[in-house]
């Protein structure tokens, strides 16, 4: 499953779709970035409500396939710009992290 297909299947909003063809393998849910840095795997979908700039750094470091922002969390313009610059896929949904994880788990 690619990031673009995931976006279309779940009707997610594309905040930054830098690499739509990226393949997804598994997922991780978490907001404490020290945990995400240690636990998220390359290719994961990472679901979070954290909107701080450092999510882009952590996504880059862990090489996750995409960030999915839950609960309608909005990013500041400079965070979106950094995501574009670093080519990090960022999707967004109004759903909770629980619902998103359940739906993504069914799909992949």
């Amino acid at each position: 499953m690619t990031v673009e297909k995931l976006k279309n299947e779940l009707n997610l909003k594309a905040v930054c779709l830098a690499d739509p063809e990226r393949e997804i393998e598994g997922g991780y849910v978490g907001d404490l970035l020290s945990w995400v840095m240690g636990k998220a795997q390359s290719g994961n979908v990472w679901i979070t409500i954290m909107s701080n700039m450092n999510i882009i750094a952590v996504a880059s470091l862990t090489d996750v396939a995409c960030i999915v922002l839950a609960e309608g969390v909005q990013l500041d313009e400079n965070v979106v710009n950094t995501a574009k610059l670093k080519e990090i896929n960022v999707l967004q949904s109004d759903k909770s992290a629980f619902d998103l994880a359940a739906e993504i788990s069914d799909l992949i």
Partner: protein
Amino acid sequence: MNRYYYDFHIHSCLSPCADNDMTPNNIAAVATLAGVNVMALTDHNTSKNCPAFFQAAKKHGIIPVAGMELTTAEDIHVVCLFEELEDAMAFDEYVDSRRIKIKNKVDVFGQQLIMDGEDNVIGQEDYFLSNATQITIDNARQEVERFGGVAYPAHVDREANGIIATLGVFPQEYGFNCAEFYNENKIEEYCEKYENLKDKRILVSSDAHFIWGIQDKRGYFDVEDEPYSSEKVRKEIFRILRTVVDG
């Protein structure tokens, strides 16, 4: 020049999670026993017990500092200290307008008592104090400085509400000049692991929520205090806190 031991992170009975025995006079009295000379009261998202703490501290010979432990929008705890009580109270009013107000559940979280200088209960805060405010970590320092204060991340060595656990690093770009540790034995390990801590002024404080949590004197400042006045000592300590450390 004289040595002043400090503890800049203490909770009173106004913090929901703190013991009701943490009255202004009990805190000041125990601080004296612990050998602490300068103490800041830093309740969660409020400074409303600072006026009482100032009165109590003076009775017990402690130099008081008005403060607050701010919870940012990201759930990161930031210690905010003010040279003047009035500035802390003005900041308190501002934070009140940026809080997310949820009714406190006394049976779950505990009471939030406001006291006078004689430890009489003169009021209580109805809304839960410790939850996240709408002030973000990237704005916290500027907001505190706008009111004449100093701000720095609290207990960076802790998982719960520490900036490193939450953001994964100690960010340089927010311009914090100091960092607080809860456990002084972790300072070396953290400074080696997190490059950005190297040029920070490292402070240790007890984050006491109970009387027995107030730790014996640890951190200190050597202060030019002649001719002595508590004002002068406080002013000098704030000057040190604002001074950038050479990396």
